């Protein structure tokens, strides 16, 4: 179990997270939905320890930052490093020995080519592969479905469900509601730096309705598409 209490994060006078309280249990997939700029990435980066913050994040015994893996929205690939070397680097970082990496390549990536030259989707697949090799306990996926092809999307959903069955803590963010609806057990709606609603699977429709009610029609009319 991980408890986030009164998490605040500001950049100068801009308060991005305004007191987040959340609990994440083992064996559950938790979704964070919200429009662009709602604070999802900041929440994830704070959670991972990549940002300083006010408030507390309590980990259950035996868990720490070293058990967390984090998939950024846009994984940064170092130049002149091949896919295989990227995997080696991230395994070294966690002191993980992986034999025959090339054979355990779930997305069939061209591992001997420079990762920097991969397409957006391939970079994401490579970052995901490294995360799966690291054998972590807590998985933070920030917009994991963006840029992935249909088949990889389906594969990733199955992997996430398997992680849930392995009693891991999985937290996934997306601004695409439908992507999360299928895999999450709990969903939290983040808006303007606050959690405005949380729901179990049976009530996901309520969050979706809240998101839709956000004066969609007026916005379309303002575009004057003719």
């Amino acid at each position, binding site marked *: 179990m991980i408890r986030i209490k009164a998490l605040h994060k500001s950049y100068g006078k801009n308060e991005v997270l305004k007191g987040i309280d959340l609990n994440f249990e083992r064996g559950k997939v938790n979704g964070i939905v919200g429009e662009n700029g709602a604070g999802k990435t900041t929440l994830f980066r704070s959670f991972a320890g*990549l940002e*300083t913050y006010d408030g507390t994040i309590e980990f259950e015994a035996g868990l720490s930052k070293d058990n967390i893996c984090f998939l950024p929205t846009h994984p940064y690939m170092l130049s002149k490093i091949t896919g295989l070397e990227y995997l080696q680097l991230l395994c070294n970082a966690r*002191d993980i020995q992986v034999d025959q990496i090339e054979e355990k390549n779930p997305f069939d990536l061209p591992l001997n080519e*420079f990762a920097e030259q991969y397409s957006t989707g391939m970079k994401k697949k490579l970052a995901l592969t490294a995360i799966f090799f690291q054998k972590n306990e807590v998985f933070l996926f920030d917009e994991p479905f963006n840029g992935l092809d249909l088949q990889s999307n389906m594969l990733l959903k199955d992997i996430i469900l398997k992680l849930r069955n392995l009693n891991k803590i999985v937290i996934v963010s997306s601004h695409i509601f439908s992507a999360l609806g299928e895999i999450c057990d709990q969903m939290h709606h983040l808006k303007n730096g606050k959690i405005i609603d949380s729901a179990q699977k049976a009530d996901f429709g309520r969050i979706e309705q809240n998101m839709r009610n956000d004066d969609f029609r007026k916005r379309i009319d303002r575009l004057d598409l003719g």
Partner: protein
Amino acid sequence: MVFSKLLFIKYSWMRFIFPLVAFFFVLNIGSRERNDFLKNNFTLKNYRQIRLVENGLLALPFTLYQFFEQEFLFGFLTMLFAMILSFFNTKQQSALVLPTPFSKNPFEFIIGFRKIWLVFLGLYALTFISVSVGNFNLGVFALFVLFLVCMAFYTYLEPLFYVWVYSLSIPDFLKSKTTVGLSYSFLLSLPVFITLLIAFSGNGYIVLMLETVGLCYVLMGLVAKYAYYPGELTILPGIVVAICIFAPPLMLVTIPYFYFKSKRNLLLYK
């Protein structure tokens, strides 16, 4: 202008260098990504005009100065090639993966080596020349430059994620980086080091001393980087590092100083 004049007076081959400098600037704005953006947002006619004007403006000062020097042919060719280059994009990064002995710990050395492997080839060649002409100082220079290049690998600042991801404690993180840095620097210097030891055995103690000092340079580069990470080395520590290069005994103070500063600094990110 005065500087250019002096260069032209002193070096006759400047007439070749000027067009090359112009092409460097022109090629710099020829990336596919940049030009695709222009192509997407302007009509084809406007896009062509923009690129011709951009390349023309960049080449113009070089062409005019060459006309001033009465190098009419080179001036005309500079402008002509700049115009022609507006129809092409600069080649993307090479996809050739150069094999290296650094893949077990892929990071600073694999990136650095693949970027400037020709420099190492040049330094090895310089060592060979130093032996063949019996010039020990030339070999010493090659070894000195080699360590400065290895030290420069640590000027690259990786995104925070690549520090955060390590599960090692800060001392262990620095220890692991040090082990890799020193062993890979030693590996790269080995051909020069061994050659100089054998060819100039009478000066073996100087070679040994330089090898030790060189490895200390690398260590200083490493700890200085993490002392100020994720920022760059500021002016004052930069000057301190530069002084240490020419007064190596000072490293006995600066390396421990940067090490303890790194330990404190990395607390924020690990």
